[in-house]
């Protein structure tokens, strides 16, 4: 493969698209579970039966974002998206729109919602305030076809890096972009790459952390399912920069579709020489293997993830040494999150300076969030970092359903905290979120209304951490269990003020004494709800009342929670 061949494929795809209408059927996990596969079959069969393959193309794509309106079908180049498409509607789209060019206003995306629909999907507030870089191909390309990815400029960033840039140049570009790790901690990506680069060793590894374990988070899943080649390209560029020869994609076992599409993507890339030996006729050789996780939240922690790839129980170990120095099989190892790798190709093509203009000065670029819970427009969104929470909830998300009142937004899953109403104007960036007591996290954003009980929310996350604690260190293993029991007491109306005091003491101890991030952050949801909703805890303890009506009070001590 060389640049001419790459450009030839791009040209071929562009020409194919130019002469045709293109029906993009969202084949993200959400749309598939509401029946997208049947819609795809119906449209493809219909086009075939009518002998219109040269005029109309029907393809499956990645997630388009508006998950609760699915299955979604987009028609390009018209920028029209239809919602809740079933067999009958698919037939009408085929007959009237694809064949006759007539839009069907009845089925437009967001028709019938409070915000209403817009003639063209990108004009709707849901899309208008978004900015798609990581997700730019999700919903637009066929994730099962490498040519479709090349058709939108895919693998050109890799070519640029290998042929025109030195590893130092690539690292400098990423440093200039200001990109920070999207897994949650926000460590500067360029700095991490430089550290791995500086460790001299004949073997180094690059790992993609796709063990997206936070409940309520499905960003990485959507990128892996919707644009797998973007990840491969990002990993290859990173490996060239740091000097890694082999990559591992660690993906949750719960994501079979993502695994299937990655397997296809790797096979296709190998076939045309974009992975393997001497890529673009350079000295750089790179190979990737998939490793399937087996359901352990703690494996999202980098040292636990490495243990899991080595075929062991996924327990973390103390750092230092950091994986950059001694990682997989004791070799220098680069670990980045899915979204981080997905940001690399555009940064190389458009430049680090371009990327650093987006977002805020200290947190550049965009962030993908999975928006769910008590909100009208649930789904997947990508916004410039620094947008306010209010804009996300009320403009993009369309507000709270059923006339209910907003109570809190939860970010960062079991390691994060909640943002109450008085902080709705908080900017969504690393520092502002930390100032209100939560974290950016990996991107789960769960909206709660007045029917959610905050002590019960804290109990829910504590149960999660208790179950997922690997058991290696005592503060986490025993501490989460004790905190869970105390929270259960509170939620059953059996707790005293002394219990609350004990709970707060324990929270500090577990936070400070645990070995890894799981334990160190496990008390966060509790501390955050205590900070803003202490009155709810007091009502549970002193008045034995749960205003949200979630907790069943005055239960006898013998009856414990789920455990």
């Amino acid at each position: 493969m060389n640049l001419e061949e790459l450009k030839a494929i791009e040209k071929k795809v562009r020409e194919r698209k130019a002469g045709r209408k293109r029906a993009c059927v969202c084949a993200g996990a959400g749309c598939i579970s509401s029946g997208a596969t049947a819609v795809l079959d119906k449209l493809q069969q219909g086009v075939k039966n009518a002998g219109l393959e040269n005029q109309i193309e029907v393809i499956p794509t990645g997630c388009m974002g508006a998950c609760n309106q699915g299955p979604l079908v987009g028609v390009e180049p018209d920028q029209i998206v239809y919602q809740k498409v079933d067999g009958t509607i698919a037939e009408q789209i085929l007959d009237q729109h694809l064949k006759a060019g007539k839009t069907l206003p009845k089925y437009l995306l967001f028709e019938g919602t409070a915000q209403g629909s817009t003639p063209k999907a990108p004009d709707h507030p849901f899309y208008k305030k978004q900015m798609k870089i990581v997700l730019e191909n999700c919903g637009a390309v066929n994730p099962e076809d490498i040519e479709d990815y090349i058709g939108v400029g895919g693998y050109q960033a890799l070519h640029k890096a290998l042929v025109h840039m030195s590893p130092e140049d690539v690292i400098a570009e990423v440093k200039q972009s200001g990109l920070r790790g999207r897994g949650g901690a926000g460590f500067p990506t360029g700095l991490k790459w430089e550290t791995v680069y500086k460790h001299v060793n004949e073997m180094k590894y690059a790992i993609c952390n796709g063990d997206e374990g936070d409940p309520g988070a499905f960003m990485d899943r959507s990128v892996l399912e919707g644009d797998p080649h973007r990840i491969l390209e990002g990993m290859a560029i990173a490996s060239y920069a740091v000097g890694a020869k082999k990559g591992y994609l660690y993906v949750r076992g719960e994501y079979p579709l993502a695994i299937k599409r990655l397997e296809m993507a790797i096979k296709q890339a190998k076939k045309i020489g974009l992975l393997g030996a001497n890529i673009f006729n350079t000295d750089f050789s790179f190979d990737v293997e998939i490793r399937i996780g087996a359901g352990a939240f703690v494996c999202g922690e980098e040292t636990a993830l490495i243990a899991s790839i080595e075929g062991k129980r996924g327990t973390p170990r103390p750092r230092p040494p950091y994986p950059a120095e001694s990682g997989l099989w004791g070799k220098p190892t680069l670990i980045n999150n899915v979204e981080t790798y997905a940001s690399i190709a555009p940064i190389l093509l458009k430049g680090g300076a371009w990327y650093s203009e987006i977002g805020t000065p200290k947190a550049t670029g965009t962030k993908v969030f999975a928006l769910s819970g008590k909100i009208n427009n649930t789904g997947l969104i990508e916004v410039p970092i620094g947008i306010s929470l209010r804009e996300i909830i009320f403009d993009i998300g369309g507000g709270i359903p059923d006339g209910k009142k907003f109570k809190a937004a939860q970010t960062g899953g079991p390691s994060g905290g909640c943002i109450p109403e008085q902080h709705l104007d908080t900017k969504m960036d690393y520092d502002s979120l930390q100032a209100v007591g939560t974290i950016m996290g990996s991107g789960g954003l769960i909206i709660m209304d007045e029917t959610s009980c905050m002590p019960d929310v804290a109990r829910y996350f504590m149960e999660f951490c208790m179950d997922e604690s690997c058991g290696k260190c005592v503060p986490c293993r025993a501490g989460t269990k004790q905190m869970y029991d105390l929270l259960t007491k509170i939620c059953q109306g059996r707790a005293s003020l002394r219990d609350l005091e004990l709970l707060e003491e324990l929270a500090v101890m577990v936070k400070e004494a645990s070995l890894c991030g799981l334990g160190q952050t496990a008390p966060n949801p509790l501390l955050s709800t205590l900070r803003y909703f202490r009155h709810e805890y007091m009502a549970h303890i002193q008045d034995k009342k749960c205003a949200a009506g979630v907790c069943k009070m005055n239960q006898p001590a013998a009856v414990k929670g789920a455990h």
Partner: protein
Amino acid sequence: MQATLNRASQMPDVNRTDPRIKRVIVAMNTYGRKPESLIQVLHAAQNLFGYLPLPVIRFIAKELKASPSRVFGVVTFYHFFSLKPNGEHNCLVCTGTACYVKGAQLLLDQIEKDFNLKPGQTTPDNKLSLQTARCIGSCGLAPAATIDEEILAKVTPGEIAKVLRSKMGVTA
């Protein structure tokens, strides 16, 4: 655990002509007969058997040159691996945060009330197993559950009980 392992050592070897064992062997050849291939091989074995029978675990340990205790340790560490066969029908209730906020607990309460079944359990007649998932990624359809391959979106406690009763052939 000692008792379990003792029992395992008294078990006969697996039947190497069993087509499923043959495919486990293929997986071991693909990933390499070394301890680091363990998790990949266990995935393959569980796909073939539906769970991980003890003789199979012992067989894998021997072939990958890992101790049975190490393999057993890995099997019990990860939620995905199961030492017990599942029931005829499988119900999986998503307890991800979006589903939790939208009432997943009410679904579990209803199933416990109607079928005397808690997550991780199977009915004595082996008809129904109940499991929970951390998040099945269908947050837009919360609360969600799956029964066998079928996805129940925005499901109510009444609906889930009704579907389960019809699956189990109970008329009520």
